[in-house]
């Protein structure tokens, strides 16, 4: 919301102070200033000048040599190319060393050999348009006229002469303060902030041009959505430009002046915060105005020329036959003011905020009016605003106002009553003000009192509760004057076991060389294709965002894998030679339609380059599981994971429940991501891991007896996994097996085709005694027996 300081000063005078002091004080009392600007500060050394004489440039058929008077009687020669001047015209002259908007500098010089001591300016060169000065021309020098309200004193700085010197402050208005979307509302805040009087004006309408009684039958049918509908009739409308002071204010507030009638509706909206509308009475058929819900499928062509189909949820202003406006949003095409408009109907109404908001949203047209209505306006301001509009019509001689107000209303003008719990407010805020001091603050905001009750003005729908009253007290007492305290009583903050578990995962992954990433939780459904997810996979059923920004962020991921691959691909494309990354993120598994999904915490590790292979990622999994105290996990090869290389993928499980998967990304998937390297990934179900972790540790006494080490070279079918052999060794050796270390796997020469040689180093130890040869041999024999069951034999 922009605020013209000139306009503000009409209602309250905060006093002489630097703008910075004004804006700081307003910000700290709750009206946040986003910035401010004084008009015309870009313009320097441009003055009012009169064209004394003109002659043709000897060397040009379009240039004119003008002698201009800037008030000191010393003519200054300026050459201009404009064709709209004549001697006697008063114009803006940019003298030698002057500045124009956009940082343009004017210096004296020669134009085709003739000295020119400056430049005569057009509207555009001063940053203005014909909306600001309707008698001026677009493509020529700006000729100042009294008609446009210009001061023609020669030598006067141009900004002063044409009123281009207002200061405009931009406020951020919060949604709870519709009253501050108006000059009066902000003036009230300013008066309270600087503790100055607020002098509001009560509009008076002379009227007396006949009565409007019976001209129109006004009725609110949708009484739940419209509390007031009021209108006055103005006949013999004289459409013309508004006077300079009004145009100036509109311009300062960022509204383009159009003509007196339109300008009046905008002016009143800015001043009172009450949207107004003017209908051409010619197009109101059947002598009636109805405020009603639209009929399904009913259409209206709005002022912007768009034909719109309405629904029963949307509210319209209608005549006997058709909708003539979408209530609170925009008028119909024939409702506007035209050159031949004679009689108009000024509307000032109060519509339900939620209804206007929904309508504007559904119709995709948020307007100045709708953005005000949707915050909830005060029904009590309809009539003063309507009167103000008519008062302006008379002041501007824009038409003849008829007596009487056409209206229908359903509202109570009673003020809301909130007990002033003075002790509670002091306790709640941590201050100590007397009841009188509190009342003095509230009185500045137009609150009145009935005993110890606060009666809040109807333009403050946000004041409902004693906490709201407390906020008003706090704002004007000063938030920063409230003495800070510590919360009484002590509390012990702590991390839960789960939070520590997650932290351990992150720390371990970093220690293992993986860097943490963060990715978007939403992905494109196409990503499932990229990771080769089968069409019938249940994971294809995702939570779908109904209004996504784009396809790439349209569904919530059911697997974190594509998020990791996107990042790896980006790194690969950025020519990073290697990457080893992890994310502890969520996967979103849908449940039923009206239930929230399961948000599953998953660890994903992904890497390429740097010499990594399947066993790098497996080693990470092993070490992480060890640190997390997840014991007795199994690993089994799987060729069923569609995203992975069928021969280089494994499922990790504990007691048959799957805790994760690791392996080399399927080459086709890698290709889909444009990664020309082998990619290795690991995912682990963190929620499950946490439930499986056995972090309790018990000390086992150090061994008292020496160990026996035996090497075992075996030969077996290539298909038999080392894991199978290891299991056989453990089964055979039982408790005596302290450790098994694989030290060689060999295929090739000297080994029969389809076979391989596998060599282990086995450490045996008893906790009871030093192992004898017999014991050791017996154990080795049992181990061999188990190994033979797998088809392995001692290598001879």
């Amino acid at each position: 919301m922009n605020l013209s300081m000139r306009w503000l000063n009409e209602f309250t005078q905060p006093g002489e102070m630097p703008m910075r002091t004004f804006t700081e004080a307003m910000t700290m009392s709750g009206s946040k200033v986003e910035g401010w600007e004084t008009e015309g500060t870009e313009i320097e050394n441009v003055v009012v000048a009169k064209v004394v004489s003109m002659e043709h440039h000897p060397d040009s058929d379009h240039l004119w040599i003008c002698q201009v008077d800037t008030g000191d009687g010393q003519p200054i020669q300026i050459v201009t190319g404009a064709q709209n001047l004549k001697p006697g015209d008063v114009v803006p002259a940019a003298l030698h060393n002057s500045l124009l908007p956009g940082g343009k500098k004017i210096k004296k010089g020669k134009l085709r050999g003739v000295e020119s001591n400056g430049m005569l300016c057009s509207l555009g060169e001063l940053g203005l348009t014909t909306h600001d000065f309707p008698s001026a021309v677009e493509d020529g020098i700006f000729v100042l006229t009294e008609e446009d309200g210009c001061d023609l004193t020669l030598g006067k700085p141009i900004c002063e002469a044409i009123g281009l010197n207002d200061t405009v402050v931009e406020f951020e208005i919060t949604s709870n303060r519709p009253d501050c979307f108006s000059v009066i509302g902000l003036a009230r805040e300013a008066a309270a902030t600087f503790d100055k009087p607020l002098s509001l004006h009560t509009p008076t309408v002379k009227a007396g041009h006949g009565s409007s009684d019976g001209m129109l039958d006004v009725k609110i049918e949708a009484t739940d959505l419209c509390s007031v509908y009021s209108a006055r009739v103005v006949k013999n409308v004289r459409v013309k430009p508004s006077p300079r002071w009004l145009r100036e204010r509109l311009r300062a507030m960022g509204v383009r002046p159009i003509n007196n009638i339109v300008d009046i509706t905008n002016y009143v909206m800015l001043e009172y915060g009450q949207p107004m509308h003017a209908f051409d009475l010619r197009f109101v058929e059947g002598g009636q105005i109805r405020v009603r819900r639209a009929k399904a499928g009913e259409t209206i062509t709005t002022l912007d020329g768009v034909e719109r189909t309405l629904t029963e949820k949307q509210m319209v202003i209608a005549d006997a036959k058709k909708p003539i406006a979408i209530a609170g949003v925009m008028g119909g095409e024939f409702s506007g003011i035209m050159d031949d408009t004679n009689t108009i109907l000024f509307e000032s109404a109060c519509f339900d905020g939620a209804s206007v908001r929904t309508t504007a949203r559904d119709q995709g047209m948020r307007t100045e009016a709708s953005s005000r209505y949707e915050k909830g306006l005060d029904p009590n301001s309809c009539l003063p605003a309507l009167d103000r509009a008519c008062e302006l019509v008379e002041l501007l001689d824009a038409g003849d106002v008829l007596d009487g107000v056409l209206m229908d209303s359903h509202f109570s003008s009673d003020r809301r009553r909130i007990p002033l719990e003075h002790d509670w407010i002091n306790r709640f805020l941590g201050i100590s003000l007397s009841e009188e001091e509190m009342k003095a603050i509230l009185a500045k905001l137009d609150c009145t009192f009935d005993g110890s009750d606060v009666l809040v003005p109807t333009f403050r729908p946000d004041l409902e509760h004693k906490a709201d009253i407390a906020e008003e007290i706090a704002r004007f007492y000063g938030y920063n004057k409230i003495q800070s305290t510590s919360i009484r009583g002590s509390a012990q903050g702590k991390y839960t076991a789960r939070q520590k578990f997650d932290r351990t995962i992150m720390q371990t992954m970093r220690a293992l060389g993986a860097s943490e990433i963060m990715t978007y939780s939403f992905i494109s459904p196409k990503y499932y294709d990229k990771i080769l997810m089968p069409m019938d996979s249940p994971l294809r059923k995702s939570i779908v965002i109904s209004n996504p920004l784009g396809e790439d962020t349209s569904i919530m991921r059911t697997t974190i894998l594509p998020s990791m691959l996107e990042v790896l691909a980006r790194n690969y494309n950025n020519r990073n030679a290697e990457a080893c990354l992890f994310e502890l993120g969520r996967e979103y598994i849908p449940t039923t339609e009206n239930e929230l999904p399961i948000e599953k915490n998953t660890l994903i590790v992904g890497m390429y380059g740097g010499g990594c292979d399947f066993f790098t990622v497996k080693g990470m999994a092993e070490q992480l599981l060890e640190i997390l105290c997840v014991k007795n996990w199994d690993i089994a090869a799987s060729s069923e994971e569609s995203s992975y290389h069928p021969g280089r993928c494994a499922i990790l499980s504990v007691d048959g429940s799957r805790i994760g998967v690791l392996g080399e990304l399927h080459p086709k998937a890698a290709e889909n991501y444009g990664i020309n390297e082998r990619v290795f990934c690991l995912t682990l179900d963190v929620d499950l891991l946490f439930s499986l972790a056995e972090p309790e540790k018990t000390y086992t006494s150090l061994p008292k007896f020496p160990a026996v080490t035996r090497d075992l070279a075996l030969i077996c079918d290539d298909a038999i996994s080392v894991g199978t052999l290891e299991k056989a060794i453990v089964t055979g050796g039982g408790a005596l097996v302290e450790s098994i270390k694989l030290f060689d796997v060999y295929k090739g020469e000297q080994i029969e085709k389809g076979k391989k040689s596998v060599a282990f180093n086995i450490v045996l130890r008893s906790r009871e005694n030093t192992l004898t040869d017999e014991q050791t041999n017996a154990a080795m024999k049992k181990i061999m027996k188990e190994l033979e069951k797998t088809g392995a034999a001692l290598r001879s």
Partner: protein
Amino acid sequence: MTCVNQGGTAEKYLRPFGAEIFLFWRACSLADRRRNLERIDSMKQELEAIRQRAISELEAAKGQQELETLRVKYLGKKGEVTAILKKMGSLSAEERPVIGQLANEVRTMIEDEITKRAAELKEAILQERLKNEALDVTLPGRQRPLGASHPLSIVLDEIKEIFVGMGFDIVDGPEVETDYYNFEALNIPKNHPARDTQDTFYINENILLRTQTSPVQVRVMEKQKPPIRIISPGRVYRSDAVDATHSPLFHQIEGLVVAEGITFADLKGTLETFVKRLYGEDSVVRFRPHHFPFTEPSAEVDVQCFNCHGEGCRLCKGEGWIEILGCGMVHPKVLQNCGIDPEKYSGFALGMGLERVVMRRYNIDDLRLFYENDVRFLKQF
């Protein structure tokens, strides 16, 4: 046994060989003395010769092996000193201890010399080795790969630590949330204009991606009786197109305190402490009135620009202050919605965005970098 200074030749002559010899000498008859003196003299000369030779040879020795050879030569079974000791059999009972003692003295001297030389040689070898082993310490270290923390995690962990230190617990909440928890329970009914400022991703009419971490407040209050002191960090979603300062997904940290007698002054005190711990003890903080539907009174907290100290500069967009969080006293309606009696309890809530804090901390100028995860970016933290 003490040895008294007797003066004279014998004293001077024998004293070096020890008190026993001297006393023995005194005990002998004059003739015996002369005879003994001659024998002793001859053997002494022999031993002295051995000693001198040994010492000069040892000094010349160049290695451990040479030392060992010399040890064998003098002290070994067939060594020269051993040979003298063997000859002792022919000596009288009186002479034997004298010469024995003498021989042992020489033996010890040689042994000591060997030990000394051995140590010297070892030291020399060590010195030589140390000299040869000198490294170019500027060669690169051999590193195990080490991963980096995401910058958002680093600062978030720091914020968590601060709050845990102030007695807050950390709780988690769902990101896919119901309209009720995200809006309704927070005093933002359907069609409330505040919904416009938070462009929401909807799943269906009742389910959405949370636009703020505030729904966790409601979930906590529904479950837990006051006193409550929690923070809840997490992801939130708003349909903002991606650019240098906007992201449809970002992180917030919610805070909530509910107990009997919590005041606005407590809110100020707590947040001032937090800001000073995060930004330094010399930070200047201000509370500026604002509006949130679920708090009343509400405030935004600004910290004075670290760059210009309030003068106004490019960093703070000329304002002199940088907005860092929103807060306020929990709205009585919200307490009531959660089944907490607003007449008995009061509380405050706060919400802050993480990304901007991190961007300022590390001078990061583009929010997209956080989610692009280029390793060259990640490795800087």
